[in-house]
């Protein structure tokens, strides 16, 4: 069995726990009222803002043994660069200014999510960053589309106005999922695989709590 299939099996419970959280279920089925959607985007801004620094922290610690993962991170960081601006644009479209966003204090759940990923890259294994990427891309590729459709319907938003971050990531991350599967299958050391699985479970757990706290 390749590692990606192993990941699917070992983290299925964690993915389902996210998917079945009542707040997530409600959001995917019926969207969100505007104030809660604003809060969610503010939380996501924080997560997106720290995405590249976490990847950079991991890339700088990865040994040559995992050079393929390091190159994957370089490429991914390049592609993700500036995506926080999409969140900012969406927030402005639904009535929250940049100043208000920058004054927003991220929740303990969002801080803990980012904090874990910095810690795991530094103290667990730098390849554990692939766990964070897996979770964010699964959420975007699998749930991002239905969620942005529900938000659009609920808030009567036109085209991608206000949902560009969610909508574009739903499509973009479909390509990323394939690339991620390929890079995960290159990780063959069991100890490293275990840290990635652990990271996936923690990231699903934490992001579920970010949603639940909104």
């Amino acid at each position, binding site marked *: 069995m390749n590692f990606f*299939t192993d990941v699917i*099996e070992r983290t*299925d419970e964690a993915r389902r726990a996210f998917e079945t959280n009542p707040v997530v*279920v409600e959001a995917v089925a019926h969207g969100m009222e505007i104030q809660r959607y604003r809060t969610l985007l503010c939380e996501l801004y924080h997560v997106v803002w720290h995405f590249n620094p976490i990847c950079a922290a991991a890339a700088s610690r990865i040994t040559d043994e995992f050079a393929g993962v390091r190159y994957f991170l370089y490429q991914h960081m390049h592609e993700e660069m500036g995506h926080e601006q999409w969140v900012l644009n969406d927030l402005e479209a639904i009535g929250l200014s940049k100043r208000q966003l920058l004054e927003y204090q991220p929740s303990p759940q969002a801080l803990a999510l980012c904090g874990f990923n910095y810690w795991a890259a530094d103290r667990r294994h730098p390849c554990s960053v692939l766990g964070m990427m897996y979770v964010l891309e699964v959420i975007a590729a*699998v*749930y991002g589309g*239905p969620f942005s459709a*529900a938000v659009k319907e609920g808030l009567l938003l036109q085209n991608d106005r206000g949902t560009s971050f969610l909508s574009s990531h739903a499509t973009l991350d479909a390509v990323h*999922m394939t690339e991620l599967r390929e890079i995960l299958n290159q990780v063959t050391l069991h100890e490293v695989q275990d840290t990635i699985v652990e990271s996936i479970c923690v990231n699903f757990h934490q992001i579920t709590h970010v949603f639940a706290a909104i």
Partner: protein
Amino acid sequence: MSAPESIGIAALLSRPYKYVRLEWSSELSALRVRTCVTPIQCYSLSAMGELQRVLLDVADNAGLVKHFVMTSDVPGVFNFGGDLSLFVLLIRARDHESLRLYGRRCVDLLWWMETAAQLGVHTTVLVQGDTLGGGLESVLPFHKVIFERSAQAGFPEVLFNSFPGMGAWNFTIRKAGFAIANEMILSGKLYTAQQLYDYHLVDMVVDDGQGEEAIEEALRSVHPRLRGTLAALQARSVAAPVTYESLMSIVERWTANSLNLTERDLKLMERLARAQVRKGTRGMSEGAVEEIKKVELDRAWGEERTGITEWAPL
């Protein structure tokens, strides 16, 4: 009950399950499995893992369980079939191996049901609500299939350019014949309990609320002639065999086809998944069945008005 059996059933019942609830009737040696996979009652990997564990326990305690009964604890839904979110994930990741693994897990459950008579177990299923795709496939190998009158079922996969790949062809052909299997699988239509009974896919249709009595009646009627019934059912699988290899060969084709689904097909799959969630929340009556009817209607309107058979962008 003898001592070894008591130990077996105690161990069997005491496992900590999340998605199934077990009940034991010592009078008829009947194990009742109630499934509850919230908020979407489907065959997730974890739920199938638990079911497989139960079935292995039954097989390991030969002679202990004589009747295996399955029902759903989710009101209005027996089972929505495959885990659509997982499919979307695996298809977008172009993950052939995991899709095939999922198919194999489904086939393993079906195969247990197909060979249950050899283990000395008679199987009964009660369907009290919607059962779609893999949900319907999963009930077909049961020895006795009971539907409450308002239950609806079908194979909607063709609506998103897929097909039911885990036993639908084999078991529908065996029970109802080629023509009906063709009609059901290629149309994607939904069928009432009565229609399924007329097609010989369902053995009993009872009024809503009468399902529990029907199970009791079915078990009590078969129990005195259990050995003969099981022997006959084993002979049936010789007369009209379904092989594991044939089931897995169809899984291979299903896997290959899944990887050819387009973005539009996946969006429709997501639309159905959302509808399944809606059915599970706020107690809404609108669910996947209603969404499938809307899709059929959209398609019919599209053909009638414009001659275009493609769906409008979702």
